[in-house]
């Protein structure tokens, strides 16, 4: 069934492109040719690689910091009350504003780009993990305390498994959000990566190039879902009936 639906999608695209006969909507075949040329020349893979590297670095920093801060805020009512307004402010600052400010304050450098992405994603992770931490089962925490589990054991065996659905939620929404922000970051202040390339294609009105790069990126994100997230889900949920 997924194969059939994909074929129907391609057929509609092909039909529309032939009917309109315009440069602004190339046929799937033309896009495939551009995609292949990009792969052969190494251009596409280079820019895709650069963007993926930025994605991995900023995503890891945002998730690690976000989980740590989220757990602390979820367990500590006073700190949570103190920082709650900060979180709301950071959640609502438009991505474009943080990107511009980071570039203005720190220059057009790699670390400013990464920082801008992290600042955009971090509040989301914190809020999700904080909500998860609030729902932790106090009975199990008491049990862990009674049996002298200690901090590390409690975190690994009692808290983390309960937070797992929240972490996976933050991961999925995080990947989707971060890669969109990274493109804007690259468009505004980097001289490589997908965002930079898309900007070039835009100036040339090269729609086939734009679509070829988009397909490459979406495929990578799909692969991450299939090869990493789904198996992780399956493994961590094996105890459920």
């Amino acid at each position, binding site marked *: 069934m997924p194969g059939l639906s994909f074929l129907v999608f391609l057929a509609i695209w092909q039909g529309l492109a032939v009917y309109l006969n315009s440069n602004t909507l190339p046929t799937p075949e033309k896009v495939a040719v551009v995609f292949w040329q990009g792969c052969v020349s190494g251009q596409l893979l280079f820019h895709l690689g650069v963007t993926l590297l930025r994605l991995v670095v900023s995503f890891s920093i945002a998730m690690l910091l976000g989980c740590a801060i989220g757990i602390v805020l979820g367990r500590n009512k006073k700190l949570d009350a103190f920082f709650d307004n900060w979180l709301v402010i950071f959640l609502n600052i438009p991505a474009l504003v943080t990107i511009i400010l980071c570039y203005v304050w720190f220059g057009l450098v790699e670390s400013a780009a990464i920082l801008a992405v992290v600042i955009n994603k971090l509040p989301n992770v914190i809020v999700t993990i904080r909500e998860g931490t609030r729902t932790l089962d106090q*009975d*199990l925490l008491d049990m862990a*305390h009674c*049996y002298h*589990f200690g901090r590390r054991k409690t975190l690994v*065996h009692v808290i983390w*498994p309960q937070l797992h659905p929240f972490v996976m939620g933050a991961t999925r929404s995080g990947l989707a959000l971060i890669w969109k922000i990274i493109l804007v970051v690259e468009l505004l202040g980097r001289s490589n990566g997908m965002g930079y390339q898309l900007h070039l294609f835009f100036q040339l009105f090269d729609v086939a190039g734009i679509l070829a790069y988009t397909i490459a990126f979406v495929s990578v994100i799909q692969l991450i879902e299939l090869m990493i997230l789904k198996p992780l889900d399956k493994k961590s949920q*094996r*105890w*459920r009936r």
Partner: protein
Amino acid sequence: MTQIQINIHSKTYPAVGQAGHHLAIANLNLSFKTGEFVCLVGPSGCGKTTLLNIIAGLDTDYEGEILVGQQYTHPQIGYIFQNPRLLPWRTVRENIELALEKHQSPAIIDPMLEVMQLTQAQNVYPERLSLGMSRRVAIIRGFAIEPDVLLMDEPFVSLDAPTARQVRELLLKLWQQRPHTVLFVTHDLREAIALADRLIFLSAAPMAVISEIIVPVPRAERHNEDAIEAFRQQLLNEYSEIKQLL
């Protein structure tokens, strides 16, 4: 030898909304000997769980002191809760192993699994266990850490009578092999007589001791329902305050 001395001057719950503050325990003095199996019997809501939480160190908001031996600064306490509190994402064996101290070998679990008839189920996740089996796992976890004191908070409540009886017999078998001091909370007098060396009757809140009675029924006769019932009737006839309590 007295191993545990409990002196609680007061335990109060703060006022919430319209309800004023609630005095749960007042001037409670109890002592227990090493290896003694004591049942604390009292009506529902009299503060038995509160008392166990204080002993376990889960509730520190009280006035008084708990002394476990003279030499212990951090008494090892096993707590078998009313619901089993197993980690659903860890197997039966992992749940028990996680509670062990670093110096303990995981192999000590095996004979206990056998006594509790859980050897076959040791690699199963708790969601696949019956309630009776989960309770048995929790009992092993409590014994496995070789506790100075083992607290049991109505661990057989909501089991059907035959299952409760079976688990009770398995518990006694395990305890006779590993005679740790046990404080067992219940409101079921028959259960208390079947298990205990000594019964302590507690009043409704604020909790205080009404009477303490040594159970004279020999251990060998504890499986005999008639002997237990006879002693229960004798208690109810001799002590009017106990009759009112139950």
